[in-house]
């Protein structure tokens, strides 16, 4: 199924055009496509779902069924920096709960909430495969390991700073 007017950037649209051709079945492209679309748009809006369903050739219901199964996929916006703290056993033993509590306090938000300025969102997540380097967190896709509350503050500060940097860049 072809899409007349895409809502994605031309790079992503071209990537999607290719993605559906590399599998024996078109539908295999669905999950990666959703994830990449989310990376670009921030979340899976109704428009995103409509276009992806069209690209794959399935119903929107079917698309939503799949989206709601995978924990990385979301249909609501998250913060610009999505802070995901692992609290599973290995991390827990090394202080993950304290890290998570620290995040809540520092950011002033609870689990699955977003700061009013849209900068940060926070989520307690399951094991992210950093067990030997816990406690660990992911900010968007980046890993931060052997965390302490102080380390975490630095990470958050770095996020804030890079937004300021970007802002300056675009003004120049």
């Amino acid at each position: 199924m072809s899409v007349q007017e895409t809502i994605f950037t031309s790079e992503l649209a071209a990537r999607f055009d290719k993605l559906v051709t590399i599998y024996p079945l078109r539908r295999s492209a669905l999950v990666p496509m959703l994830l990449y679309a989310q990376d670009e748009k921030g979340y899976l809006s109704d428009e995103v779902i409509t276009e992806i369903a069209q690209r794959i050739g399935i119903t929107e219901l079917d698309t939503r069924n799949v989206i709601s199964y995978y924990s990385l996929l979301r249909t609501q916006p998250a913060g610009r920096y999505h802070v995901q703290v692992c609290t599973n056993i290995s991390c827990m033993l090394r202080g993950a709960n304290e890290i998570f509590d620290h995040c809540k306090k520092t950011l002033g938000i609870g689990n699955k909430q977003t700061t009013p300025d849209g900068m940060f969102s926070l989520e307690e997540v399951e094991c992210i495969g950093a067990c030997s380097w816990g406690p660990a967190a992911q900010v968007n896709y980046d890993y931060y390991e052997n965390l302490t509350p102080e380390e975490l503050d630095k990470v958050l500060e770095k996020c804030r700073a890079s937004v300021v940097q970007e802002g300056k860049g675009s003004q120049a």
Partner: protein
Amino acid sequence: MADVTFTVDGKQITAPTGTLLIDACRKVGIEIPAFCYYPGLSLQAACRMCLVRIEKIPKLQTACTTPVAEGMIVATETDEIKQARKAMLELVLGNHPLDCPVCDAGGECELQDMTFKYGAAESFHTEMKQHREEQQWSPVVYFDRPRCILCYRCVRVCGEGMDVWALGVQNRGVTSIIAPNKEDHLECEECGACIDICPVGALTSGAYRYKTRPWEMNHVATICTHCGDGCKTTLGLRSVDDGVEIIRGDNRDKSGINGDFLCIKGRYSFDFANHKDRLTKPLVRRPDGNLAPATWEEALDYAGKRLAEVRDTRGGASIGVIGSNRTTNEENYLLQKFARKVLGTNNIDHHRTADYTSFARALAGHQDRAASLRDAGTAPAILLIGNDPTQQHPMLAWNLRTNVRLNRARLYVANHAEIKLLRQARASLAIPQDGYAGLIGYLAGDDSALAGTESSAAFREVIRKEENLLILFGSEYRGRDIDALVNFGLGLPNAKFACLSDYNNSRGAADMGLMPDLLPGYQPVASPAQFADEYGNLPQTGGLDLIAMFDAASRGELGALYVVGSNPVSRYNIAPGALKDTFLVVQDMFLTETAVLADVVLPAANLYEKTGTVTNTYGDLQLVKKAADKAGVRSDFELIVRLADRMGANPKELVSYGIGMRADLGQSRGVQSGESDRHAVWLAANHLEPKLSPFDPFAILDEIQRLVPDYQVDRLALLAGNDERTVPPLVHIDNASSKTRSDGVLPAQDTLFTSGTLGRYSSILDEVMESRETKSAGAAATTSLDVST
């Protein structure tokens, strides 16, 4: 396939290789419980209720996914298994609300039944159950999430069964939920299959919910009054002030030709019977020109006197009779007998929606070539030309889909429109709307008959190689085109045919001689043979067809018109003035466009309020049982007899009652059943039942079976509620004279949500149409808003 022998609970069982253990056990009476397993739908192994112990396998196994194997030793009711089942129930009941006292499914809930059997009465959780508000998904479908046990039956019956795919599963784990296709509502065919298949009360119907408790209803299985497929629907009934009301329709016992399938009309569109505009008093046109209520005495007297007057002064040929395609065979037969014998006219017709006459002529002399509806579910290959079964024959469409899905049947579709069944088609051919006749020529080998392409040549090639092809055709084919089609098909080995028409007893109307030129069984009026012996004097020249009757009326040549259960004024766009010089008697449920012009209107019962038989479009004959009742109305059968009586005819000559054996019968028909009923069935089947009343349709069925050989079916099987095949029609039609014959077919083009005039009085159909319009209007508004911003 070869059989295997294995042991279940110490009992030796033999079953074909590949049979699922659960089915093999159920067949011999070993009940293995299951929520998710449903015959004919894909396997889930999700509810874990059917766990059994199979020797040499370490873990308990699901009987629903285990094929039987030679020498297998199975235990299904040990303590270990009982405990496993009990534990599953305890887990389900952890969140399932115990609102059974107000749940629609209470009393017919599979979860209740299993809890009853396996215990699980103890509750050991202190946490709250999860509660969510109930949601309305459509006028038909309501969803109560906490009750849902996630067996996925609804998802599968909607997707695999209906090919609608309107239900999905969302989220995961304990938050898993059944979701409708439009986020907060459903857009679907509103068949209600999801509701009936739900083992608990998670899905309930807008038509039935909170109306009664299941055990407070009586149940009568009868035939749906809507389309030509003739599904069996089991009506749930309760007594009300003015009779017996229908509150539910389903076919959960899977008896009948349709198994548990029903469309929205079969399940819910019985509600016209309770419409506020239902006529319950006869109406007579007063000198002031207005229709006003009258007594039965007055109305019948008046109608009978005037009809007799017209007959006696202007002759039978100046009277017309229009019958119905929703009345019973007995009523149709009686109506034509009344027309010909009492009124002395062949001016009799009905709204024809398929050319059965040509079909009968084309098939004459060929054995076993007429298909049953059942054949669509078993034929290895099907050619569907014209029609849109999804809209017009939902049960046929179900059979075709199921046949393709489960038996890998090869479905070939030729149509001018993009019909939904193309999704199941192995091969298809798009033809122009006027290309149906050409298609047959083309299939038969005439390349010039259709603008052929490579794909059409391939299509022809595969069709011509098929053996045991079932050919289904719609009203696109009439007259000589049917001959051509049948001739082509007869050239293929074992091909069978079915001609698709639009209404519940369209076939019966044609079979029973509601035709100006044909007597019952397609016997030409010019050679009445056994009918002459039976009826005495008969008019032997062909009468006026429906259109000609109205033409004659507008010329002032039709003195009287008797319309039974039909609304020709609306259907044929008759100018109301056309009938100003015609004495019009109408029998109907409602004051239709036709009835409003009448001099006498007689309030009639509908198909659910009477007994008799109907024939579906495939020629399957089925029993109609009286289910509901409405004070003030009478069956068309009774009204015809009474009218004849008022005209001075001898009712005994019309209906041969008062003969047979005397016996202690008790209640023989209606909503009661029991021993005396079965006794009566046997007597009736053996023609021993005394027909004590002139209003007994079985007296006429005796006569039909005596005079119309097609209808000589096994009466006991018929009365037991089975569908019985009528054999192909008679051979009497004269080829020479039929060349000039007009087929008179006017397709109804109903959709899933319409049903002629009757459909307009169904509030559920109304609501569905309305909600779809609102929803699509809403969607359009949103879209335009997007554009503007």
